[in-house]
């Protein structure tokens, strides 16, 4: 665990010191945070639906941007090989990258939610919990960004190990969301909007995340990365 904590410390320190990444995330968070209050919807139910959508969008776009960047920055800065030459185990490096990318996406989604709540309260002169006011909403607003961010961070990290270009890695990561949507589109999986339905959806995605993470840990090999770097 201490190796994973070291990786998380490193990524957090770099993220806080990186003005560009912070600016990108702050713009998205503020923009999507004030949207429900500015779009002219009158009912808190409609605002809650918008809130959920924007929170999910924040987690998707911020994670798809930041997760590949965590690897690509190391590749371009030539620090990746030095990191691989340390005693850190493969799984700590990989899990550290994935969890850091997911954490950035999730925290930004929660920041968006916080701004939404404040903005809506200022507009309506009264407090309303929007999507958090019922159990189904809570599963979706709190659990949805977490599972989506973890999924995208895992895919983004694996893609960035192979693809050395930020834009390509970002696009492949975003497109990978379609894989998640396929079972729903093909009606292999049906989801109800009840609390138990949304809980099942979030937990199902969490299982997908866990499997993907395990596959990623198995795929992440120092030698493979060194060979990619040599190319």
């Amino acid at each position, binding site marked *: 665990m201490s190796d994973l904590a070291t990786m998380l410390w490193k990524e957090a320190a*770099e993220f806080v*010191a990186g003005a560009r990444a912070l600016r990108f995330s702050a713009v998205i968070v503020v923009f999507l945070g004030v949207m429900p209050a500015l779009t002219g919807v009158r009912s808190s139910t409609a605002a809650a639906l918008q809130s959920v959508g924007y929170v999910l969008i924040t987690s998707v776009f911020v994670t798809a941007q930041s997760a590949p960047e965590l690897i690509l920055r190391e590749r371009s*800065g*030539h620090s990746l090989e*030095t990191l691989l*030459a340390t*005693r850190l185990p493969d799984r700590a490096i990989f899990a550290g990258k994935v969890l850091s990318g997911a954490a950035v996406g999730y925290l930004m989604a929660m920041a968006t939610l916080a701004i939404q709540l404040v903005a809506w309260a200022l507009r309506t002169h009264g407090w309303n919990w929007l999507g958090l006011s019922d159990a189904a909403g809570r599963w979706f607003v709190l659990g949805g960004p977490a599972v989506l961010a973890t999924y995208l961070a895992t895919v983004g990290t694996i893609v960035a190990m192979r693809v050395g270009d930020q834009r390509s890695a970002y696009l492949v990561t975003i497109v990978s969301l379609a894989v998640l949507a396929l079972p729903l589109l093909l009606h292999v999986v049906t989801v109800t909007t009840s609390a138990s339905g949304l809980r099942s959806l979030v937990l199902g995605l969490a299982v997908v995340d866990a499997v993907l993470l395990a596959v990623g840990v198995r795929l992440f090999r120092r*030698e493979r990365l*060194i060979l990619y770097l040599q190319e």
Partner: protein
Amino acid sequence: MTPAIVCRGLTRRFGAQTAVADLDLEVARGAVFGFLGPNGAGKTTTVRMMLGLLRPSAGRIAVLGLDPVAQGEELRSQTGVLLDQVGLYDRLTAAQNLDLFGRIARMAPTARRAKVEAALRRVDLWDRRHDHVSGFSKGMRQKLGIARALLADPQLLILDEPTSGLDPVNIKMLRDLLTSLAAEGGRTIFMCTHQLDEAQRLCSQVGIIRAGRLVAVGAPDDLEGSGGAPVVRVQCRRPAAGQAANLPAGAQLDGPDGEGWMRVTLAQAADVEELIKALVAADAGVLAVVPERRSLEDVYLSVVEGA
């Protein structure tokens, strides 16, 4: 005591290309080993295999008595590394960069702070500890890279082209640092370099690699005296008599210069005695006979160019 590094028939292929071929090498503990060779000779691939970052295609390697692939984590915890690209984290400060590697080495917070301070003071970067590395010059980055490699008191220090791309002032500064490290003893230093004078000054042993094969290895002094036809320089009071002397078979005499020095290339080292006898017999007035040593550069160029 087992050697610090042992390679036996070490080979690494990338598809049809062989980067390192049948490398046999032994580096004693505490030695300062210079690994010389042109670009693409296989130095970096060898270093990567030593660190367990690449698996050998054939042969075996042991570093500090450990198998780099099977015991990579343990090996890397005892090894300090400065690769050809320093690989610092530009967004972090100098102190944070070292602190990170202290955490990776699992140092306790108090010990880590003390080690970071000592390392930064050693490379004269303590006053810049709160500065972001992105603003550092190449020389400062190299110094910080060495401080990072030394942080956990590694038994083995691997330096890949530590003075590459530096200006003369920074090269001297870094060489002084490396000289002090080499003088401390106790730690094995494996250094890849193009700088022959650096290898000559710092290394107790050097190896020259060409096209993936180790073509020469030994102490710089031994290598300097080895290979090629033996040459002696002879100073005579009467050079003309020396030129007319009956020289040993196959000997070739050049000169003299204004001070009566002549250069004689012999067929074999044992001919020196015969040469002196011939000069004495010719009444050349022999004042001095000095064997001419080949420089490390001569040796390097001859083996690298395949001469």
